[in-house]
């Protein structure tokens, strides 16, 4: 089964999102910041979808995406940002880095579950 990686410095959000995905039959792993997310993605080639926060310590979510596409040369993994940030400039930076979509928190799982399934398949 392909795996989904949830990257957020808040354990509340990690538990909520990963718990929701597992409850709905999807395989989910978690990372605490962009640096951890990058390491987990490098170690697990089965990850097909990354759901990531933007503002995090050590490495923010958008820098992580730039490194996924650049340093890891991974052009295929789908990345969705899940964040309280909603500025057009940040979305543009995300789009330029290869982000597939943007969700403004709070997380409403039922609204996005089927799209997550498709992006993770």
């Amino acid at each position: 089964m392909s795996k989904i990686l949830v990257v957020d410095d808040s354990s509340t959000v990690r538990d909520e999102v990963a718990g929701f995905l597992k409850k709905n039959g999807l395989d989910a792993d978690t990372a605490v910041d962009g640096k951890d997310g990058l390491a987990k993605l490098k170690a697990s080639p089965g990850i097909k979808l990354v759901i990531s926060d933007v503002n995090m310590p050590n490495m923010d979510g958008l820098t992580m995406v730039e490194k996924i596409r650049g340093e890891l040369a991974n052009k295929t993994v789908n990345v969705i940002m899940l964040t309280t940030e909603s500025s057009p400039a940040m979305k543009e930076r995300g789009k330029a880095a290869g982000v597939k979509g943007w969700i403004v928190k709070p997380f409403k799982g039922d609204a996005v579950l089927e799209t997550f399934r498709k992006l993770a398949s």
Partner: protein
Amino acid sequence: MITAQARDSFERIFRKAAQARLPIEPGDTCEIAPVGAGDATRTDAMKGAQVVVLTISSIVFRLLLILHFDENDATRGYYLKDDVERPFQEVFLEICNLCCGAMNQELLRYFPDLGMSTPYVLSAHCLPYLRELNPDFVSAYSVTLNGSMQLAATICVCADAPVDFVADTSAMEETSGELELF
């Protein structure tokens, strides 16, 4: 300089965001009452031994949203329910983050260059140091959830240029949670 209508707009945006994001259940009540502006930086006048601080920054202003809380049985019981395993501050920080995010989302309609900080916790004894920022606007509120659970809030805005806008909070659109595909 922050005009009177801009101050009123910051206040209305805060109220709307707090009412939408601070209650844990949709049916919970959230009463917000102003506290004397001079009390906003007085530790003894505001409820809560600790504060969560978040910042919204733009080219023309920096806004600090400060949420005061006591980690007592009432607050823990309200936000954690019966879940004793979840760390209270983790849960409460995310609630505050969502409240600030709702303010940020509304302010983006008038200021397209906004960025948010991550939340951090300080002792309420730090509040008097807000004066050192020479804020152009400070307002404070008591927040009561479900008639008894007490929080408090302070908004502090420092302007680097004239700030003037009128927020239309009546038409605040709820788009959070939706996936915008690129």
